[in-house]
């Protein structure tokens, strides 16, 4: 059922958004806003950041404390905001290029620190805004403007990367299975610690057109058909898994959060002169 309260969280005067017709970014933002509304988080106490690219325009549409930073570096700004004002809920929206190409180093270190930032990665497997160049998540053999003979690189598995780097909440959802998407975003928002939600998105304009999926529904099908629930995934053979990816929650652990630990172990000790 449509919930008109979500408008309270949007800068409706900034709409319509700039995304192409059929782009899945709006679906993800919709889910994010619904989740915030559901959890009744005070919008004055939310900071939303982004890097550069199509996903980077997200904060502009949200009626919160918003920061459109530099390419790939949004997590560094988010780290400063969270440390200096821990009472804020800090949400960082990134594209695949932001998160695991130019910002890959910041990403793994934020995971390792387990700082309470919610990283929502819009993974459309391409650099959309700059014209369809291949990204670190473009599947092998798919086409991009800088891979005119097909991509020869091996893509990153963002979930495995986040897990390996130590994030305490890691989930993957997609722009088609909305129930799961809402669910994992809500869980990430409620989790204390570095939370990663990789959302398999679409880019009909730059990825689809180059890969025989120029209609938005074809791209959504492409995502939906490959997305396999974690439970089913576990029962599948290596052969069956080829070209597909699991969706669900991969890590959900309670671990000491960075800023709290700093306050407890550093500030308290420093004030007591305990060194």
């Amino acid at each position, binding site marked *: 059922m449509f919930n008109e309260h979500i408008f309270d969280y949007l800068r409706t005067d900034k709409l319509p958004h700039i995304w192409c017709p059929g782009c899945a970014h709006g679906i993800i933002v919709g889910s994010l806003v619904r989740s915030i509304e559901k959890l009744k988080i005070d919008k004055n106490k939310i900071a939303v950041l982004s890097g550069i690219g199509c996903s980077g325009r997200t904060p502009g549409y949200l009626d919160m404390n918003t920061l459109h930073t530099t390419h790939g*570096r949004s997590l560094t*700004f988010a780290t*400063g905001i969270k440390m200096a*004002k821990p009472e804020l809920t800090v949400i960082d929206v990134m594209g695949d290029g932001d998160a695991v190409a130019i910002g890959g180093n910041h990403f793994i270190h934020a995971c390792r620190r387990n700082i309470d930032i919610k990283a929502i990665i819009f993974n459309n497997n391409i650099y959309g805004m700059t014209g369809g160049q291949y990204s670190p998540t473009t599947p092998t053999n798919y086409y991009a403007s800088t891979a005119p003979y097909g991509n020869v690189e091996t893509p990153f598995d963002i979930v495995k990367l986040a897990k390996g780097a130590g994030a305490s909440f890691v989930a993957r959802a997609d722009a088609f299975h909305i129930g799961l998407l809402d669910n994992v975003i809500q869980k990430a928002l409620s989790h204390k610690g570095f939370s990663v939600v990789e959302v398999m998105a679409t880019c009909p304009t730059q990825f689809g057109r180059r890969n025989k999926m120029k209609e938005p529904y074809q791209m959504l099908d492409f995502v939906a058909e490959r997305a396999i629930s974690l439970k089913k995934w576990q029962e599948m053979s290596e052969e069956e898994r080829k070209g597909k990816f699991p969706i669900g929650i991969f890590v959900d652990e309670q671990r000491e959060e960075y800023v709290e630990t700093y306050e407890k172990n*550093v*500030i308290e000790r420093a004030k007591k002169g305990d060194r």
Partner: protein
Amino acid sequence: MPNIELMSGNDAVVRAAIMSGCKFYGGYPITPSSEIAEGMAKELPKVGGKFIQMEDEIGGIGAAIGASLTGVKSMTATSGPGFSLKQEHIGFAVMGEIPIVIVNVMRGGPSTGMPTYPSQGDVMQARWGTHGDHQIIALTPCSVQETFKLTFEAFNLSEMYRTPVILLTDEIIAHMREKVIIDDAKNYKIIDRVKPSVRREQYKPFDSKHGLVPPLAPYGEGYRFHITGLTHDETGFPSSDHNTVEKLQKRLRDKILKNRKNFDWYEERMVDDAEIIIVAYGSVARSAMRAIKDARRENIKAGLFRPITLWPFNHERIKKLSKRCKKFLVTEMNLGQIVGEVEKGACGVKTKVNFLGRANGEFITPTEILSKIREVMNV
């Protein structure tokens, strides 16, 4: 009661930063500035502030800018290669008008260069390192005492003008230990950024109605505004409308240049009757001070002009001095950077601009300056 303490330039930065009310430091280890990070790691938590060593230099300044947006005074420090890496975010702070202090302890370059040797090779990078047209404030101390003082000023200027301020020291000043007079905290002027006085719904983070420097609200207090590195209108939202962008660019320029008289600091010694004026800054100015005294003993009328505010450069002052003296001698630890600015200032007058500089890691001594003075003055 003022205290007298022995400390290094890097220690002085830490001490003054804490006294200025700095509450956040984001950085990355690099020689010869690491002692600033170490000092801040120790001192900040004592006053409830926070320190983080980020995964790289870009992250260090990014975190500091983020923290500043919540309303706290923030800083980072670096040297040479690290300063290069920070440039994109310096531009972001210029565009977003976010107060932050960046200390760059200059070392030999280019590239990894000579990490433990002094240099003044980053002077032009401080001015033009980030892309795009912009103004920047850079201050350069010539002693530990002055490092202490200018750290306060750097925080004050960044807060007053909502802008990144660069404190440009060098390896000599940073590592040299000198006596520093430290007064009671209450005797230092400490300026905090102006917060908005309008109702939250009416707040525009880049509103030019209130003068050249719009008030900055902290994140999390109900103002809910937007900041982007894109050109933007007064509300902070992206705009590429030429008139809007023109207005923004002009205000960003004017807020620094039209306020320059408030921080146009320099020192002059014996310039009134000088026939030759040495232009030197930072540690090299110490040699120059000695050299002009020695020159006077030989009856050469030498004086010193020492810019303290290096950027924006004071071309007008050079112009005035150029009408008085016969010659300038610019001396700096590089192959010629500020000398170009002096030439600009002296343009159109007959006063000749001479140069003594090098970039091999060797300090420029008083004796060398004196012999150059003799050479230039034909004695």
